[in-house]
């Protein structure tokens, strides 16, 4: 019994990591309906940026991440402003193909710059530290920090969305683009700002990705599919829903792995399909769609 509890706790913590991957995607998808096939690769890009900054300046990855965040903010703004704003429209396909092209460019660009070697972000002793919960259960400090960070990020994003004028503008633009323009909102600027914020979140996700597992230029797409599953299960426009989605996928994966290690990823996908069959619009969708 306790064994299963341990598995579920591991799943919840894993879900925190998936929620971090998904939070940026949820933001972008919620506001501009953009299916960003390059999101996973952008997280990997941020991870390499942290790695590079850490090794060039000889600093801790945590500090490197703090420096990487403004850089990724600017990069996200530029990416949206120069490229993605031009492909957004009624059609699903152009942004799909553009972000696919972007994904390929980032992966191969990173391969050229950093080779295909596996990397890791080192934080020192804290990597293996764990907290005893009693009854023989223990949880890793890093996984716990990941979940706590995911919750903190979502709290901050919700603060942004629900307590600031910019957040109101985000929500209005997502609700009704035409009328938002009528309010004097420059939707291109809104989109660029949203992408910039999403890239900051991606940097945080990258830090935890790099610390908790080995990474190389090609792992983006695998992470992307979990992020999408979390966003879709959660429902359009709901960040807490995205967290719930991440946790559902995480728990499904750890429970599946416990039954048979080969079934880990399959279990996650089956959980996604199950939720989506029952609730095609997700668990907490916005009123309008």
């Amino acid at each position, binding site marked *: 019994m306790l064994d299963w509890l341990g598995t579920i706790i591991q799943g919840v913590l894993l879900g925190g990591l998936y929620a971090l991957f998904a939070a940026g995607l949820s933001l972008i*998808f919620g506001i501009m*309906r953009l*299916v960003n096939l390059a999101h996973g690769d952008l997280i990997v890009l941020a991870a390499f940026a942290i790695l590079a900054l850490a090794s060039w300046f000889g600093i801790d990855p945590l500090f490197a991440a703090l420096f990487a965040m403004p850089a990724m903010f600017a990069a996200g703004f530029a990416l949206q402003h120069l*490229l993605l704003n*031009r*492909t957004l429209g009624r*059609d*699903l*396909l*152009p942004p*799909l*193909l*553009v972000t*696919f*092209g*972007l*994904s*390929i*460019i980032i*992966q*191969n*660009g990173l*391969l*050229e710059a950093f080779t295909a070697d596996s990397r890791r972000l080192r934080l020192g002793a804290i990597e293996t530290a764990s907290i005893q919960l009693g009854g023989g259960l223990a949880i890793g400090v890093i996984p716990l920090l990941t979940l706590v960070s995911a919750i903190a990020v979502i709290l901050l994003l919700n603060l942004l969305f629900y307590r600031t004028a910019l957040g109101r503008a985000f929500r209005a633009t997502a609700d009704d683009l035409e009328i938002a323009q009528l309010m004097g909102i420059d939707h291109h600027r809104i989109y660029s700002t949203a992408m910039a914020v999403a890239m900051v979140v991606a940097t945080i996700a990258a830090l935890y990705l790099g610390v908790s597992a080995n990474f190389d230029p090609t792992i983006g*797409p695998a992470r992307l*599919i979990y992020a*999408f*599953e979390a966003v*879709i299960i959660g429902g359009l426009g709901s960040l807490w829903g995205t967290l719930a989605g991440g946790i559902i996928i995480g728990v499904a994966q750890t429970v599946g792995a416990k039954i048979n290690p*080969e*079934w880990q*990823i*399959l279990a996650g*996908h*089956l959980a*996604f*399909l199950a939720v*989506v*069959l029952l609730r*095609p619009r997700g668990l907490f969708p916005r009123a309008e769609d």
Partner: protein
Amino acid sequence: MAEGNGKPLMEPARYRIETNTRASRLLALAGIALVLMLAALPTFAGRGLIQDLIFVFYMLALAQCWNLLAGYAGLVSVGQQAFVGLGGYLLFALTIGAGVDPIAATVLSGIIAAVFAVPTAFVVFRLRGPYFAIGSWVVAEVYRLVFAQFKQLGGGTGTSLPPSVTNEVFGIEWVKATFEVRAPAARDIITYWIALALAAGAPLLVYLVLRSRYGLALFAIRDSEATAESAGVDSFRTKLGVYVLVAAVTAMTGALIYLQKARISPDAAFSVLDWSAYVIFIVVIGGVGTIEGPIAGVIVFYALQRYLADFGTWYLIFLGALAIVTMLFAPKGIWGYVAQRYHVALFPLRRRLVRR
């Protein structure tokens, strides 16, 4: 309107609906000639060219299928690799497990895949738009992970076609004798003809579907699903029909691909990059929503693969940049741009009202 004495005021005009143009009739003849020429190609072409053309043909078949699904039925799927892999594995299962001849197995794979496609459709049709795209990708991943569990078919590492299968293809003795080649080359020639049949048949099939009443329903759904439904179109059944048809042809193509490769593994057979990303690239660069588009796209893609693939990562970066640039400046693709500029259509689909 009738007058008092019951005689009609004027003769009712007689109309019929016409789709062919004179240009298209000529092109149809040219097309038939081309296919015949291509069929005769093995008499003088080298093995390298034959293998290259097999690649072109099966990518074209996949592209036409995806185009019908996404460009005409509006079902943008990132999960067609599910049926490519399914077709491949069905071929292996039927030939190795049941001793069925590979050519017959190819056709059977399509039929069996159609059966699988029905419940799959019921799952993915619950989703719309971008959700449908991701959902179809997840379903394909489920197929991949499930097939990786079948130890009889090689599990995660896959398996190969034994010589008992590859050397016993129907007609291989005749080909060996007629073209004076050995078994591997003879198998390639037979595979080539199957591929040619698929490559010529797919556009034709798509064209026939679109010219039928079924096609009218698709156009209506593409323009506005709600309006189409109010006009009596059963949108669910129409989409289901297209999905199942496309699944069958995709699976047959998958069977063919793995007949030629003679080696299958879950990661290769269900690869989202090879069987979705590149196919989507071909269709969209060529021109989505047109039958001519995928033809243009596959030619471009083949040229890129043939001459630039050696450049490794730089080639892929170029491919990505090409996708981006095309979407920015020619979102309708190469054929879309040409068709708009010069008002041509090789496969005319506009229905005109013509007086008799």
